[in-house]
């Protein structure tokens, strides 16, 4: 009986030791994974900064859209109160699509994607790294568009700037995550430029709606409160669910 108990005690002690010993490598694995994501993100941002291809194209495109909007609608204060959020996010969406399309397309030159997939970076790390880089690019683009928007349409956005930044941050992440997955999915297709918008735009509807409604409210001076907290929850829910889906399915998309 005693031997039995002491044997069981020894087994339990062994398990505890092996458990705490295994958590150190786990920490290392997480740090190494994050390090790889950041390396990929840094690579993308550096390459983009050298050429500024996507950034220039999308800035030019967004300026043209804003100008066309001013002709299409009469930008008086009442009109702007109703439409500002919608307009702004439409500009973000169309200009952002240019950036997102480039994301995996830039890997096809020189067969770089093969080298990345053959490396120890897991596809989820590659995906998150690229998503982070796209996110940084899109946020930069959006700040510039927001400033332009404020000037061209006389919209005061500094009043509620904190909540506005939150909405932009959440909405842009949702857009970026879905856009990056589909950029990977369409990368090898001959009709890539057509297929990406066709697939991605309908999928952006929930995040677009929530972001548009919140932005319209904030630009009109309404603060975030119980009336529109629902939409913040929608944004968070969308972001979480689609990030998880993206990370788990990206291996299938890239390697299969």
């Amino acid at each position: 009986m005693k031997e039995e108990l002491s044997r069981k005690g020894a087994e339990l002690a062994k398990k505890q030791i092996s458990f705490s010993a295994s958590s150190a490598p786990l920490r290392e694995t997480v740090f190494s994974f994050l390090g790889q994501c950041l390396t990929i993100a840094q690579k993308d941002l550096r390459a983009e900064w050298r050429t500024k291809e996507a950034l220039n194209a999308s800035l030019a495109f967004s300026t043209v859209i804003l100008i066309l909007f001013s002709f299409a609608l009469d930008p008086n204060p009442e009109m702007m109160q109703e439409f500002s959020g919608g307009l702004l996010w439409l500009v973000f969406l169309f200009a952002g699509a240019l950036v997102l399309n480039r994301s995996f397309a830039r890997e096809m030159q020189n067969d770089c994607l093969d080298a990345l997939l053959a490396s120890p970076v897991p596809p989820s790390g590659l995906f998150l790294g690229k998503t982070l880089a796209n996110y940084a690019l899109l946020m930069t683009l959006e700040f510039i568009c927001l400033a332009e928007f404020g000037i061209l349409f006389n919209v005061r956005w500094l009043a509620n700037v904190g909540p506005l930044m939150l909405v932009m941050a959440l909405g842009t992440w949702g857009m970026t995550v879905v856009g990056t997955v589909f950029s990977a999915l369409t990368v090898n297709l001959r009709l890539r430029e057509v297929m990406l918008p066709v697939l991605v735009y309908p999928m952006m509807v929930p995040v677009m709606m929530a972001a548009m409604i919140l932005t319209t409210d904030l630009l009109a001076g309404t603060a975030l409160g119980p009336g529109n907290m629902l939409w913040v929850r929608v944004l968070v829910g969308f972001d979480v669910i689609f990030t998880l889906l993206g990370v788990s399915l990206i291996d299938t998309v890239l390697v299969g």
Partner: protein
Amino acid sequence: MRNRVLLLLTVAFAVLITWNLKNILLGLPDEARQDAIFRILYFHAPAAIVGLTGFGVGMVFSGIYLATKNLYWDTLAASTTEVSLMLAAINLVTGSIWGRQQWGVWWAWDARLTSMLVCWLIFAGYMMLRRAVDEPNTRARLCAVVSVFGTVNAWFVYKVIEWIPRLQHPGPVLSFRTGGRIDRQLETPFFWMVLAYLLLAVILIMIRDRQESISREIDSLRRLAHA
């Protein structure tokens, strides 16, 4: 065996639809506010119910393909999604006709129709993707991922659009929906109609599935011949 099942289902569908149509067109009284047109509900709503279920089932088949890598499930998923897309289109068209008759507009931006339109666009993209990829395994893999994303997104779309305050029906839908319950006499043909649509969907999926399998076999024979 398969042909026999198909024949049986077709006969069952033919009998059911004839009997139910007779009930709907002749057996029911005209509704107070909407006259005869309210009967379009029996074509409009079941299409949505079976169609949306079909998208979900398509996602399940796609998931099974991803787990087993057996192309049989991919063909089934594609057929199911295509038939569901057709049902979604029926829902949109009948909804539009009904709206025109009732409210004078071909399209009213109400929650349900808008959600269905977005759904339709998502899965129309799926069908476009199928045409854009030649290699069957790659096509199956990519479409399975789109199916999963699309179905989860469709669920989001429905929830989100429901909450938008201005997207309501321009007027009350049906006067007999008092207290949320439909009159018994009007309810029964509704359920039979859902069953009829379900039978129709299964029949069409079986036919479409066979077409896809044969087409895939021809494709591989062609590759073999060229090799």
